[in-house]
């Protein structure tokens, strides 16, 4: 059986332009430089890396929110890079995204109810009444009080807003959600609520996640498989526990050693490890 999502040799190149009046392309930056991975239905791939590693661009290229320069993205057996217009829109019902910043990703002029029901309207799902019932159901599922359906996003905290974003992503019953740093703007106690929610939803609806994040501890807590990105390439990939306990790549080792762990006794050993690996990251 083939995987739900198959990404092969994905490349995204951005032009570097110079000149004020007459712009010309002087060079290209390869943000994603040949990335391949699969995601099985119901599973999570954690895509980790530091800023500028190309992990978010990879997510955008998969959903065709940005068109890749080359490579293949097969989702449910269909080649997304060849689709456009109505065909692409139909596929998007099954592949949704949750963004990092719940402050800027929700339209401030729309009510919570309208934000969550918009995907249903766009895809002409059900009657107005069906949609209203579905919105309440969705808000209930993500732990957001449906009584506030007529309020506006700014009236809520970051955690509550992220729940709204998740409810919207769930509206069309997708099979894959790209989660782009979904908890990094949240406080620890709220972050834990959202991570638990994402795990519960996965168990309940059999969702697959592409979980993009820079926090390695957070990624471990949700991922079955891990792909480590560095300068546009995947430098290591494998089952999560294997990558975390027996990293092979030198960059992965340095990255793991750099994470501060909340245990002063472990810090001493970890600092030793870090000193040993110094220089690898700088290269």
């Amino acid at each position, binding site marked *: 059986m083939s995987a739900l999502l198959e990404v092969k040799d994905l490349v995204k190149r951005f032009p570097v332009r110079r000149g004020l009046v007459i712009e010309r392309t002087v060079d290209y930056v390869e943000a994603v430089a040949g990335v391949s991975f699969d995601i099985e239905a119901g599973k999570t791939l954690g895509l980790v890396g530091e800023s500028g590693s190309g992990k978010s661009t990879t997510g955008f290229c998969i959903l065709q929110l940005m068109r890749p320069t080359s490579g293949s993205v097969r989702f449910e057996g269909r080649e997304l890079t060849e689709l456009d217009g109505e065909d692409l829109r139909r596929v998007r019902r099954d592949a949704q995204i949750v963004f990092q910043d719940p402050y800027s990703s929700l339209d401030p002029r729309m009510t919570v109810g309208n934000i969550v029901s918009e995907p249903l309207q766009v895809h002409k799902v059900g009657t107005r009444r069906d949609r209203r019932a579905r919105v309440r159901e969705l808000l209930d599922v993500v732990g957001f009080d449906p009584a506030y359906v007529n309020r506006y996003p700014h009236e809520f905290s970051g955690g509550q807003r992220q729940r709204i974003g998740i409810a919207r992503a769930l509206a069309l019953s997708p099979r894959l959600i790209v989660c782009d740093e979904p908890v990094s703007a949240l406080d*620890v106690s709220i972050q834990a609520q959202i991570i638990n929610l994402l795990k519960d939803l996965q168990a309940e609806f059999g969702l697959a996640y592409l979980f993009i994040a*820079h*926090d390695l501890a957070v990624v471990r*807590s949700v991922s079955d498989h891990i792909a480590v990105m560095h300068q546009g390439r995947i430098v290591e990939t494998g089952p999560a526990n294997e990558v975390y306990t027996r990293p092979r790549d030198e960059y992965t080792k340095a990255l793991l050693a750099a*994470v501060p762990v*909340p245990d002063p006794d*472990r810090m001493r050993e970890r600092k030793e490890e870090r000193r040993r690996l110094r220089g690898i990251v700088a290269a």
Partner: protein
Amino acid sequence: MPLLEVRDLRTHFFTREGVVQAVDGVSLAVDRGQTLGLVGESGCGKSVTALSIMGLIPRPPARIVGGEVVFDGRDLTKLPERELEDIRGQRIAMIFQDPMTSLNPTLTIGTQLMETIRRHVDVPRSEARRRAVELLEEVRIPKAETRLKDYPHRLSGGMRQRVMIAIAISCEPDLLIADEPTTALDVTVQAQVLDLLDELRRDHDMAMIAITHDMGVIAEIADDVVVMYAGQVVEQAPSRELFARPEHPYTEALLGALPQLEDAASRTGRLTAIAGRPPDLVDPPDGCRFAARCPYADERDGCAEHMPELRQLRPRHFVRSEHPASERASAREGAPA
């Protein structure tokens, strides 16, 4: 006597919506050569505490309505602005989360460094320049000499933070306050900057207050830890003790809410989320501010009505709760079967 001692500090913001009790009962102390970690979630008052110590709170709307900030024997809250200005920069320096907003984008690194040096000590330009190069080398910026001519935007985030640190230590401060110094940085860069701060603290025998939301950062650099919640200190202990034997239900919950990097069962388990949110500081509850989210709060003991005092449980270990972990354990043992 500690270098800095803050006693029952209260900083309130007088706004149209009411009085926000942003800091409402903060006591802490830090010795020369030591690092105090100040940890808490957004809105707990940790940054306002730092700004109050520095005398940098925006007035109005904010005002220190109670407490003392005793630095080297003098109460800074009572000092006239002129004298406070001398202490700031010369004896207490501060670095912030985002170095780009604290550096002037229109001036070179060299100009900004030399300006700070010459503002505090009367030396010729050539001497200030020599000192600037030395400082950049001390914060491990490669090719310091040529970097002097660079503008801030030419540098990476980590390099900018190093420049900020160089400016902060240029006048050999006794106390360095670092407010989320590595939050904007990548994890590998964060590790280097934390190591640097720790070395500087040692080499210069400085006291340091490290403010962060990250328990990992605390474990890495703090000797003592102060945990803040809703404007108050809820627990204080030596770092090792705090992580090994947390007492306050909030501290316990905060540690339980953290995903563990080295936990193989992390994928299958659930995190202990803390239900609800911190209270509104315009109208905080009379009793314990954590009571509404506390799994141990009980109507009978009245902790929702009366504010618990910060009390000592063990040597150097303080807690503001009626239900610290060690007392819950002994209560269970003492209970009739």
